[in-house]
């Protein structure tokens, strides 16, 4: 289990250019596998274009109480990049003027940003009705000051989306660290207790499953059934939907793929599972990702790869909806992770 981010370890792969090189060399350079660009061009889907903006996904900081082995953010307690109130103010200005209806807060652990609650409250005042918070669950149990998060979420009718690798302790702790399973279970029970995830409840609680290793997720419906059965039988826990998402070959997951000599096989698996229909709904087509320091990206993954939006407006302070709509999405081979099987963005496959 990793205890430090790649950045802290001064790993070669903490450098996003190095990651992009790896994704463009080797099997993609010698033509063994088609590049993502060539692949989507086969079905006339190149260039991929942004449609109307619906969701603002704001990454409020890379700090996290966990150091999951395959984190695509390379998050951890040692990451100090945190969004300031000033940048949040700029986001609020945009929220007031945009047609986007959903605010999706992510991190790291977004709740660790000292201005997290303030931001949610202000955004609610600014007219946001649909909040998504990507909560890792353990944060709710990490410190007393977070114990009342379920109540806070409830007050603002926040849609909670949480990672849960498996319904058994062994598989969960292997991926996310010792003790994570027990804490997550406790957090889920507390969310259930205030009404989250209960049948017919408006308080939405969805879980995200991503594989613990170099393989693709299985059928989402079947996994959801197994998760529901497992969590209900053993812990009386309920939740709404399960999103089975594919790990993208970037950051710590790429590091793992290379170190375990799974990289090529994994890329083959992604390309084999390519589904042209999933290209239509990749999340970058209706989402804009904003980094902790206010820069704009097509998605959280491009943010981590340091691939800025292809537009004159590059920072939240220069935000211009017309300039951004219809922009060409910046792509590379990591995008195959979004088009494998049924498709993989949490929004794309809502049941």
């Amino acid at each position, binding site marked *: 289990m990793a205890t430090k981010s790649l950045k802290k370890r001064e790993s070669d792969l903490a450098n996003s250019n190095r990651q992009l090189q790896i994704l463009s060399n080797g099997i993609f350079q010698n033509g063994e596998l088609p590049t993502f660009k060539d692949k989507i061009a086969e079905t006339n889907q190149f260039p991929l274009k942004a449609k109307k903006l619906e969701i603002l996904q704001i990454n409020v900081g890379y700090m996290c109480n966990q150091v999951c082995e395959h984190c695509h953010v390379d998050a951890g307690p040692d990451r100090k990049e945190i969004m300031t109130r000033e940048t949040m103010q700029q986001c609020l200005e945009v929220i007031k003027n945009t047609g986007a209806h959903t605010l999706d807060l992510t991190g790291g652990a977004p709740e660790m940003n000292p201005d997290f609650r303030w931001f949610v409250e202000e955004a609610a005042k600014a007219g946001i009705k649909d909040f998504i918070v990507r909560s890792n669950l353990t944060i709710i149990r990490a410190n007393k000051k977070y114990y009342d998060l379920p109540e806070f979420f409830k007050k603002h009718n926040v849609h909670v989306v949480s990672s849960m690798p498996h*319904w058994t302790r*062994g*598989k969960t702790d292997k991926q996310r660290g010792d003790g994570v399973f027990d804490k997550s279970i406790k957090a889920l029970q507390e969310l259930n207790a205030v009404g989250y995830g209960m049948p017919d409840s408006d308080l939405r609680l969805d879980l995200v499953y991503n*594989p613990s290793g170099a*393989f693709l*997720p299985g*059928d989402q419906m*079947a996994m959801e059934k*197994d998760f529901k059965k497992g969590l209900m039988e053993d812990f009386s826990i309920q939740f709404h939907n399960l999103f089975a998402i594919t790990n993208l070959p970037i950051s710590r997951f790429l590091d793992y793929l290379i170190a375990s000599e799974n990289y090529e096989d994994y890329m*083959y698996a992604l390309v084999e599972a390519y589904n042209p229909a999933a290209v239509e709904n990749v999340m970058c087509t209706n989402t804009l990702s904003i980094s902790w320091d206010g820069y704009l990206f097509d998605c959280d993954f491009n943010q981590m790869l340091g691939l800025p939006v292809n537009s004159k407006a590059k920072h939240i302070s220069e935000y211009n909806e017309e300039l951004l709509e219809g922009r060409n999405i910046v792509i590379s081979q990591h995008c195959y992770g979004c088009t494998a099987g049924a498709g993989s963005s949490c929004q794309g496959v809502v049941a």
Partner: protein
Amino acid sequence: MQKTYYDPSDLRKFGKITEWNEELGNKFFEYYGKVFEEGALTAREKSLIALAVAHTEQCPYCIDAYTKDGLQRGVTKEEMMEAIHVGAAIKSGATLVHGVQMMNKVNKLDG
């Protein structure tokens, strides 16, 4: 010349068997696909049966494929190992139950 009988990357080429006999190849894959669909047994249960049989058949391609398939379906390693023991128990049982044949023969010839 390849130096081993088995090459992991050959598994990816399995589909190519249709190139030398399209009709039978396609019929086989159609049948194969149908067998593994959700039915009276779940696809997950079928995957575990396949894993056990892969071991009794000692087919490295199938072991590779159904270990991965199990992981994709959220099958735990404990479940996988138990499934293999079922296969192993039947295999050893099948060996040992023939001991009765041996005993019969001894009793007949040397009774």
